[in-house]
């Protein structure tokens, strides 16, 4: 025990700095540069609002991430529940006094920033679960009492986000949560049961869905039915990606992008624009960078001695993967259009903040990887 404390206590700042994961950092930086250039392209090759604020945010949040990385992992473990409760509080605040935009009440006004708490919840839920299962004994995990609390932790924010309404984010929160639950060791049969339950309740869910949400799902199955209406986004996105070809149309030369055929090209469809301009090769490169990031996060998790750090890294890596695949599948026409940003690439402060907080916890795990948490 003494040894342990000594180990962590005696670590100097430079040692900590040296023990950071530089591959991960470089990858995040590359992603930052790529995303800034993509944003520049969405602004039509001019340094306009989106590009400027994206670059600014990236720099601020990247620096913030590095600073937060030096926080002891114990801090995150200690504040795990608090973090969750604060974000949940913000969600409730959003549903009561939030800012409404395009028919959805998602944002809270924090005076210096308009925050979207649902994005933060994507991370908070992983931290919360990581803390919960860090303490839990393996033989108690599948006990009824120990199932009910995580269930509550998961369902509460989902209900809040669905009511905003924001189907996309709530699905992503649910997916991140479920993956962590499964990784933590919950018996597979429970997932099968609840899956069956969902299937049975599907008709009721459909009845609750808003007309535009139903339309999106119907459109997914047949986008050509109404090419100028609901199917427009999917069709234009596929045209943009498909016309990119092997090497793409070239930087700033994506016609679908600069001629404004692409909807929401800053946010959810940023990959479409990138893929149109840089083609198959560029898309593979981007996927490779994401792959390396995920690999590094998993690797850090593997080497972490604390269960909290391990589960968080595994959970975070998996949810980043889920975000990426859901977003790409969506713009590639493999999934219905639901609002889901591409981590780091998409325009949006809350999403980037959440991702960067996630990375700083991962980095903290790396720096304090030998440390055990009680």
């Amino acid at each position, binding site marked *: *025990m003494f040894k342990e404390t000594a180990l962590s206590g005696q670590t100097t700042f430079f040692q900590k700095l040296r023990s950071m994961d530089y591959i991960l950092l470089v990858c995040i930086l590359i992603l930052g540069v790529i995303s800034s250039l993509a944003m520049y392209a969405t602004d039509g090759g001019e340094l306009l609002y989106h590009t400027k604020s994206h670059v600014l945010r990236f720099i601020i949040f990247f620096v913030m991430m590095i600073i937060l990385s030096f926080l002891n992992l114990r801090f995150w473990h200690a504040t795990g529940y608090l973090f969750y409760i604060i974000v949940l509080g913000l969600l409730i605040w959003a549903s009561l006094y939030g800012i409404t935009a395009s028919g959805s009440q998602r944002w809270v006004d924090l005076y210096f920033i308009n925050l979207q708490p649902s994005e933060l919840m994507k991370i908070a839920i992983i931290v919360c679960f990581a803390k919960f*299962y*860090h*303490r*839990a*004994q*393996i*033989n108690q995990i599948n006990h009824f009492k120990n199932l009910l609390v995580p269930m509550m932790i998961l369902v509460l924010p989902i209900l809040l986000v669905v009511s905003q309404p924001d189907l996309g984010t709530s699905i992503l929160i649910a997916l991140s949560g479920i*993956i962590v639950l*499964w*990784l*933590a*060791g919950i018996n597979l049969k429970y997932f099968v049961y609840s899956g069956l339950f969902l299937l049975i309740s599907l008709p009721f869910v459909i009845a609750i869905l808003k007309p535009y949400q139903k339309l999106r799902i119907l459109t997914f199955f047949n986008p050509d039915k109404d090419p100028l209406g609901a199917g427009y986004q999917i069709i*234009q996105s*596929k*045209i*943009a*990606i*498909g*016309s*990119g*070809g*092997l090497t793409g149309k070239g930087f700033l030369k994506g*016609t*679908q992008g*600069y*001629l*404004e*055929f692409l909807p929401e090209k800053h946010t959810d469809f940023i990959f479409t624009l990138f*893929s149109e301009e840089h*083609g*198959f090769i560029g*898309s*593979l490169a981007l*996927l490779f960078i994401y*792959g390396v990031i*995920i690999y590094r996060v*998993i690797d850090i*998790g*593997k080497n972490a001695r604390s*269960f909290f750090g*391990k*589960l968080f890294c*595994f959970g975070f890596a*998996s949810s980043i*993967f889920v975000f990426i*695949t859901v977003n*790409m*599948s969506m713009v*590639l026409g*493999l999934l219905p259009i639901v609002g889901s940003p591409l981590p780091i690439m998409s325009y949006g402060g809350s999403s980037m903040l959440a991702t960067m907080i996630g990375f700083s916890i991962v980095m903290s795990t790396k720096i304090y990887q030998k440390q*055990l*948490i*009680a």
Partner: protein
Amino acid sequence: MFGGGGDSGYKKLSTVNRRMFIMTAAKLVIFGGIITRLFSLQINENKKYLTLSDKNRLREWRLPPVRGDFEDFFGNKIASNLKVYQLHVVPEQVEDFRYLMIRLRDILDIDSKTFKKILKKRSQQKSWETLIISENLSWDQFAKINFYLHELSGAKPVLSVARNYPYDEKFTHLLGYVAQASEKDLIENEVIKKSHVPGLRVGKIGLEKTFENQLIGSNGIQRYEVNAYGKRINQIDFVEGKKGANIKLTVDTEIQAQCNELLKDKAGSICVMDIYTGELIAMHSSPSFDPNLFLYGISHDNWNEILNNPKKPLINRSIQGLYPPGSTIKPIVALSALENDVISTKFKVNCTGKTEMYGQTYHCWKDTGHGIVNLRDALKVSCDTFFYEMSRRLGVDRLNLTAKKFGLGEKVFNGTYNEEKKGLIPSTQWKKNALGRGWVLGETLITGIGQGYMQTTPLQLCLMTAQLANGGFKIKPKIIYDKKSDSYEKIKAEMEKNRIDLLSDFQQDDALVDFSLEKKKRDTDLYKPLYRNQENVKFVLEAMFASTNEVRGTSYSSRINDKKYQFAGKTGTSQVKKITEIQRELDLDISQIPYKERDHALFVAFGPYVNPRYSLSVFVEHGGAGSSAAAPLAKKLFKTIIDRHEEREKIREKSLMEI
């Protein structure tokens, strides 16, 4: 302190590591799936999506093609293009279309009817298609628009080209005219459909219509990149249109202008032709109208004026007008009789002014009679009695063959003019087929003086005269100048050769058989003799000379003594209505007869008499006697024709040098 440590902790770790391993494997599979999808979209279906993307972003605007010109033999432009100022609006580029239209209406003073028409047009077009507000802005309007342009966003003053006929009414019937393409034009002509743009003018009649496909030219194409809202971002491509082919005609504007002058205030036609090359020197039909009126849609008043004119300006009399040829047919009747050995040149008839045949009285135009006349005199004084007797002996069927051979009863320009009429040269067979009744012998007599069923166009008479005047050889009439066509010298040599060939044939076998086997070959017969014995043709020509240049000849008063201009001709006065005995007694002056019942005046001629080169036909509808109404016009025209000949030959030589 060791949270989750010990055995339980180890188990927990192994579970999470195992599950993470499964998770990682699943991730790889899913990434693989995304890459596969990317591959299928970007590599396999790249072409398809590239096309779709181009379809999204590229839009084409077709510019109106520039129409080819018409020019006369001397290179004068008869139909060309004029720069005009137009006002265009592309509705999708206008923020407030209605407001703009109302502003334009006030500025340009558009009347409510035209305004409604424009709005209707707008509703029929696609929003990116150009809407033409005005096709021909006056300079005033153009200046006004430019003055207000800053508040008329979306309105575009454009410099465009429009058809222009600088000779106004002089070439209307010969050229035809253009007007806005109709639904029907688009259906009938693929080429028009292919190059159609709003406001396109196409040929409606005449050469403008016949040569539409050569004249029309090709569209210029502007290819623009547009954004999702249809706004033009930048020009990708500009393909310049090709101007349509210029067509050179054989006509002479100066002679044509004189024809127009001569027929002023009259209804009629004048045709002039080169008797060797077949080139049409002039062809005018009167009254005419200004084809420029049709360019921007003719006004109601102008149209009514044309439509209600009793002299019917819309008819191209030269090729559409069918009239009895009257005495102008007599040279052919005489030739036919000689060629068929029905009479000899010495045959004589005593003309007393009228003759009884088949229980009918047939009058000569001269009530007092011509006395005893031979064939030469009969042609010279146009004695009807002689021709009654001669055609009685000849018979209508033999006359029919000769007349057809010389170009009557068949279209002169087969296909060049859609509106050209064939006319009618009667025969016994024709009457049986067409009317179902047998030929009456009396009808032969009136056919012999160019009355009855016989109907010819003025152009046919001109061709007939040409083919007599060149010594009796077939020629090919043409109106489109072709550098490569046979020269005068070559044609003359060819005719001479064919003449000699026929002479030797004539000596060998029975020419009569050969003569009667009339073959309907047009071009292969070119420059071949139309006669059996050229002496007969020469005899007829000489008689025509007498008719104009000897005392008592019907057109003696219109003669020119100067050998350079001297011409030979034959008058004709064709009856519109059967003259009753009472009218014959009254012997009314022309001014006392209602216009519609007056005789048509005709005259055919060729000249110069020595070495003739040109033939002409003059026709004055309800003009009265040929000798007084038609022949004097020919006299005036011949001077110009011969004077212009040298100019013409100079141009011809020059153009031959250019080859």
